[in-house]
């Protein structure tokens, strides 16, 4: 009986573990920080909205790629995709979704971008986890975030640089701004995502737990208002800038502020590549890889940081 018992314990473990599957080459963070995903324990609604973002990003990319060159009525198309994503945000998943399940063509067309996004999103997540759980709100917190960032930076092949980049990187390419001109509401939705992420970081910089809880709740409320009636509800002229939207966070962690802005710019660049008819179908994959390489390169489009300490 004892032998059977242990056999079944092993079976049980196997069954519990059988919740992951390999669909592509993934970038895995190992070992994971002790704080991993504890943000979601304290703020489950916000965590679920972040999971919904992953779904929304992937879905937009997949649609634009699959339907590329076949969209006769961009306005109607945008309304349809927007409604689909809004439904997911209104009923967000409790579990992180794999992009390959949502966007099987996108993940194999932009493998480097995907590796970089995965890696960067893990950094986002784990910084949120540390900021939301650390009892120390001073030097120990800063040091812990630095440790997380050091583990991130230790994989330079996929680590988006912390070097501050000019907006020309995003807006100065031959295909730039195609997405925001063609699909203004979808673009504002994605900028609203980024606004939400940035403001979560800022909310979690508050010194007291009640203030942090209130800040996260306010950020959720304001985000929902931002996307309530797109394009009118989100009044962004440019991509939200972390240094402006999250000044306390940016002063404390300037290397993160710039890295997150560079991540957000790459998101927009991919959208532009997929939307612009100036990019040939045969060039989509190569352009994605070329632009991703620039996001790894600290010298490409480098400018002085608004806040000292961003450039490595």
């Amino acid at each position, binding site marked *: 009986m004892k032998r059977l018992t242990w056999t079944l*314990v092993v079976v049980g473990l196997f069954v*519990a573990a059988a*919740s992951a599957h390999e669909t592509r080459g993934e970038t895995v963070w190992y070992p994971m920080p002790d704080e*991993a995903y504890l943000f979601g324990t304290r703020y489950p609604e916000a965590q679920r909205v972040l999971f919904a973002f992953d779904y929304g990003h992937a879905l937009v990319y997949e649609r634009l790629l699959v339907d590329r060159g076949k969209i006769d009525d961009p306005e109607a198309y945008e309304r349809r995709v927007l409604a689909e994503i809004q439904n997911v945000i209104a*009923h*967000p998943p409790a579990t*992180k979704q794999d992009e390959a399940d949502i966007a099987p063509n996108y993940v194999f067309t932009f493998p480097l971008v995907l590796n970089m996004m995965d890696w960067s999103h893990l950094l986002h997540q784990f910084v949120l986890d540390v900021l939301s759980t650390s009892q120390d709100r001073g030097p120990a917190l800063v040091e812990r975030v630095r440790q997380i960032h050091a583990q991130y930076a230790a994989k330079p092949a996929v680590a988006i640089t912390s070097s501050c980049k000019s907006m020309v990187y995003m807006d100065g390419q031959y295909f730039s701004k195609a997405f925001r001109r063609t699909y203004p509401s979808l673009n504002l939705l994605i900028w609203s995502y980024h606004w939400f992420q940035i403001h979560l970081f800022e909310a979690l910089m508050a010194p007291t737990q009640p203030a942090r809880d209130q800040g996260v709740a306010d950020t959720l409320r304001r985000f929902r208002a931002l996307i309530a009636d797109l394009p009118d509800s989100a009044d962004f002229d440019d991509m939200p800038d972390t240094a402006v939207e999250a000044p306390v966070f940016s002063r404390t962690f300037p290397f993160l502020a710039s890295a997150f802005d560079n991540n957000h710019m790459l998101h927009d660049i991919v959208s532009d590549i997929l939307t612009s008819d100036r990019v040939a179908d045969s060039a989509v994959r190569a352009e994605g890889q070329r632009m991703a390489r620039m996001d790894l390169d600290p010298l490409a489009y480098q400018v002085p940081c608004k806040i000292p300490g961003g450039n490595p």
Partner: protein
Amino acid sequence: MRMNTLLLGALTLGSTAALAAAPAPVDYDLYRSLVISVRTQGAFRVPMPDGHDLGLSFHLELAQPLQERPLVADLPVDASGDHYVRAFWDRLMLKDGSALNVGTDRPPLTCVYVQGQDNRFSGKTSPLTPDFLLKVYLVANDFSCTGPINPGWPETTGVKETWDTYLYYEVRDPTLMLPTAPRIRYRWNEFQAVFWNGGLP
């Protein structure tokens, strides 16, 4: 034989574990509601190296459950018995007209078999492990829904598995019901597939 032994053992151990720590009451209605929420239509593709992906799709209409309520067993994940995975199994018959579309073939879909996993009592802390995992088999050509293993095998038949054709996928979040890790078994040949998530109609 081995699967039956394991299942029997799991049920026995689940009962034993119940003595150590009272398990949560079984919510049969919840599990049945998850099962009847499976998609009634969907499209998939099997990626092919030559660029000519194989498209396949299905549509189905649920009929009666084959059993009064889902089968349930608690599988311990540690020696204390405090943490366990609650497995459940259910089968629903399908109405005539339900079918797979594979190339020019339209084999009839005959039942849905769901092997479910409720991880809420497993002690998990990471959202990477879902609360629920549904392993969904849309089964073709088995009008009695006998599988997945032929009863009494190998005494009764030389063939271990019942189903020659089915579409399999997993659901990791009942909110989305997004099919993940899909694969098609078509006349015993198996192919990994991808869910074809829309695009222009």
